[in-house]
């Protein structure tokens, strides 16, 4: 009896470890696959690439980086991520701080007016027309302004500030410090955990965004981000790929194959920043969802 239970338990443990190893493989392999493909010689890659590059080369990266507009797009993406994240963190935190001030006139109204925006949106078309009416069409600001104040961020920061000891702020007030001084010198430094969490989420959002780019930057391709650049490369290659099916000859196949290498290399370039930052940022992700969950 006891013996059987032990055997069952062992089987369970092995199966359980096996399952999670498979799950991790499913999460990692797609990235690994395009990584080794991007390091392979396109002519040799055609025979199949699985775990290691075939005919190791960095030529694909050179090809992608020398494509017109790629470096510019990388610059736009970085600029968008840095300015957008800074704006979001500053605006949300200062506004949230003001919302903690019991003394403010109409404080409850101001706060609720912001919070309810979480629960409705006008829809794509009215939003698009409004942004255009504000002159944000073909304008870099359309990347960073609409997401500057997020109701959820304001809730998180406000909740965080409210549980800070009030005595610190009072002491500063007695010393004659104004709202701004208290905010920058006391509230912000004490709120780093929540601000870092929001910064990480905001940065990922900005780095990954492409839809606003797609609909608002039609007339300013020089303001395209890396994500949209990748999207365009993917779409060109998709057209090529459908043609591959009609071509039987191996040589032609090989020549047609290179767009696939290009798209994988481009994908890798856009993914690298996330992969590099991710291990360091992961604890903030976890913290972020926990705080959000407690609030919910």
């Amino acid at each position, binding site marked *: 009896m006891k013996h059987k239970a032990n055997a069952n*338990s062992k089987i*369970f*443990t092995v199966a*359980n470890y096996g*399952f*999670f190893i498979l*799950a991790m493989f499913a*999460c*990692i392999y*797609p990235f690994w*696959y*395009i990584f080794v493909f991007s390091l392979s010689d396109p002519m040799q890659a055609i025979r199949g*690439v*699985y775990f290691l590059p075939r005919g190791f080369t960095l030529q694909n990266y050179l090809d992608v980086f020398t494509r017109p507009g790629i470096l510019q797009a990388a610059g736009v993406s970085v600029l968008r991520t840095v300015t957008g994240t800074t704006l979001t963190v500053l605006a949300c935190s*200062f*506004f949230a701080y003001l*919302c903690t001030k019991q003394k*403010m*006139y*109409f404080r409850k109204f101001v706060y609720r*007016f*912001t919070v309810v*925006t979480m*629960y409705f*949106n*006008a*829809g*794509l*078309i*009215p*939003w*698009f*027309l*409004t942004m255009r009416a504000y002159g944000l069409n073909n304008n870099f600001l359309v990347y960073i*302004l*609409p997401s*500057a*104040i997020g109701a959820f961020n304001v809730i998180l920061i406000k909740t965080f500030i409210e549980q800070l000891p009030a005595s610190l702020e009072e002491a500063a007030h007695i010393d004659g410090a104004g709202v701004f001084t208290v905010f920058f010198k006391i509230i912000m430094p004490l709120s780093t955990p929540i601000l870092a969490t929001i910064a990480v989420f905001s940065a*990922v959002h900005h780095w*990954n965004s492409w839809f606003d780019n797609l*609909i608002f930057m039609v007339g300013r391709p020089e303001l395209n981000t890396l*994500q949209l650049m*990748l999207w365009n490369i*993917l779409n060109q290659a*998709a057209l090529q790929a459908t043609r*591959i099916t009609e071509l039987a000859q191996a040589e032609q196949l090989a020549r047609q194959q290179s767009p696939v290498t290009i798209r*994988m290399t481009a*994908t890798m370039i*856009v*993914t690298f920043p*996330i*992969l590099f930052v*991710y291990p360091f940022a*992961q604890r903030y*992700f*976890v913290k972020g*969802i*926990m705080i959000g*969950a407690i609030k*919910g």
Partner: protein
Amino acid sequence: MALLKKLYGNERLRLLVLALPFVVFVFMFAYVPLAGWITTLYHYRPGVPLSRSPFVGLDNFRLITTFYRTQVLGVLRNTLIFAVLGLLSSPIPMFFAIFLNELGSIKFKRFVQTVTTLPNFISWVIIFSLAFALFREAGPVNDALLSLGIVESPTMLLGNANAVYIFHTMMGWWRHTGWGAIIYIAAIAGIDSELYDAASVDGAGRWGRIRHITIPGLMPTYLVLLLLSIGNLLSVGFEQQLVFMNSMVITRLDIIDTFVFRVGLQNHDFSFATVVGMLRTLISILLLFTANAVVKRVRGHGLI
């Protein structure tokens, strides 16, 4: 001047003045677009001011059952199917967390968590590229299937209308499970360990403890998250469907949001697209209030 000084001396007012730019900002970006709903009553064309657009009453609403009838029905069906599949998938992160918790090594647990959370932070454009790379005709998945003799000719997963619902639901699992499990992992850590000890004394094995302690302990979290998701029932994606859209799968993959995008921004029927978007928002708010009322019943206090 004296008045200004007096006003400035009023701290309550000064705080409000400081907050005012933010309030205006929120108003501009969240409330003003609602005014666009008025275009549902006009035959609105981009570039022509509303004052010179013909007023058509409820004609745009009638298009739902007339001109766009077939498309609307298809889009509703797809959206509802994705929504139901999403609801059915909702326990997966919970079970993922339960089984993760059964792993002995803490280091391994952490590592699994780190790795499986990663897909949540990858944009849909990149996911599309990954899926294309893996599932294309000459890709590794087809290579493996062919060499194992499971299929005789390469599969065309991304162009297969019959596979759309299950494929996109499974991609949702891939992207969301690790992330969604975090909250349950924390909830498991919060379960009183004495309960487990007591169960062991009573002779409960691993399954007994999972069934009688872990799952009941996680139920409140699960139910709250489930009810919360009801308010978002119609949000079944958008970018996901948009990037994977092609002519072979559009009849199955088209959802309300992609439909609005196509009708409005690609075919320039702004008024009708706004009608659909507006109804979607109103239904979502209704669902949210319903869910909130239910939660209030169950927990005593609501979500909003």
